[in-house]
């Protein structure tokens, strides 16, 4: 074990805190990881109208956003499932992720796309969030970067779990109404 303490606690306590960010996968890379057998992915926008949002709410799921980016995974004529991109906000962190749901409605895999740790104030700024949510431009896996790991108290994944539940409900609702065009 080799541990080098770079800053003593007293000095660190009064240094301004920095922001921290890491990109793991693009949405497209995640879709391919989740459905490796797919030979093509078709882009979809899932949009819910007010009635559908109300139906979600009646089912105990808060429909926070009314629009999601998705990809239908196909192999030949068969539909393998759908991958949906979403983002959640924690106490000091923003997490974007992709959920893969198979054609029977079961979660196949969840992949984290990116993580942003920031000052509490920045987290809730819409501009900061837009930058984060729209991040699907192709970029390679990070190579040789120096962004550090965080060691903090355990992050709450409550919001992430809620987000996944919401996506599963949204996909089920969209499928029932034929809105996915699968």
């Amino acid at each position: 074990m080799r541990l080098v303490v770079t800053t003593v606690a007293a000095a660190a306590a009064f240094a301004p805190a920095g922001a921290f960010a890491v990109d793991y996968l693009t949405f497209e890379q995640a879709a391919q990881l989740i459905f490796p057998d797919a030979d093509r992915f078709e882009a979809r926008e899932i949009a819910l109208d007010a009635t559908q949002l109300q139906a979600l709410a009646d089912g105990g799921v808060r429909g926070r956003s009314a629009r999601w980016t998705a990809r239908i995974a196909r192999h030949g004529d068969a539909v393998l499932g759908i991958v949906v991109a979403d983002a959640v906000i924690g106490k000091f962190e923003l997490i974007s992720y992709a959920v893969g749901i198979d054609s029977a409605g079961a979660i196949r895999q969840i992949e984290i796309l990116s993580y942003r740790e920031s000052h509490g104030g920045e987290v809730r700024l819409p501009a900061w969030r837009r930058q984060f949510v729209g991040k699907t431009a192709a970029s390679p896996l990070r190579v040789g970067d120096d962004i550090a790991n965080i060691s903090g108290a355990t992050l709450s994944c409550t919001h992430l779990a809620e987000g996944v539940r919401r996506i599963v409900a949204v996909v089920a609702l969209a499928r029932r109404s034929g809105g996915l065009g699968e």
Partner: protein
Amino acid sequence: MRAASWRRARPLLGTLVEIGVDSATDGADVACAIEAGFARIATLQAQLSRFEPESEIARFNAASAGARIPIHDDAAVVLDAAAVLRDASAGAFDVTLGSGIWEWRVEDARVLVKLAGGVRIDLGGIAKGHAVDCAVAALVAHGATAGWVNAGGDLRAFGALALPIELRDENHGGVRPFATLADGALATSRGVAPGGELRHASVAAPTCLWADALTKIVVASGQAEHPLLARFGARGWLHSTQALAVA
């Protein structure tokens, strides 16, 4: 400069688990090793989480006094360590969270015995560290030569890399540099000490199981240099929990 770095993260163990591999080897092999690391953690979660109804721990919690629950090696390793720390700390380290500190025991590393009806076990303070150790072992077994596993701040680095560690400001958000870690583990924990004081501590140790568990000793005792730490080759820090003046 490092070789190509691969990073993935998934929600597991009630937190975000990140696996990183620094490798010059073929990408497909690295992806396979990372998959094996996540799979190992998922298996441990199924065996050790009190929230999984079929887990060995959930079965123990649901059982009556006198029950003998067969356990696998991982539960035995974690519970053995928990018993060692419980005994050495006169009960300060308590996986029953006050429901019966001395009312459980492991026999022959195979059977978990419930000595009183009301006792319930929660391995949240120690099993995450073991899961990190196991994921590291899985990565190494699949050919990864250097990398790290980070389960929401319980992390371990292996191979020829020095991992920069940042500490989150728990009051205001943001992170600041804390240390670099090579070939070892670091865990951080925040908790309320028996007297009601909020404490925030980190422990570095050769393995993550001990780093994770020993943070609870530091939080409970308020001693960054508690004698138990030296016994397990560990080192501790208490962080300021005062409100920070700098925006």
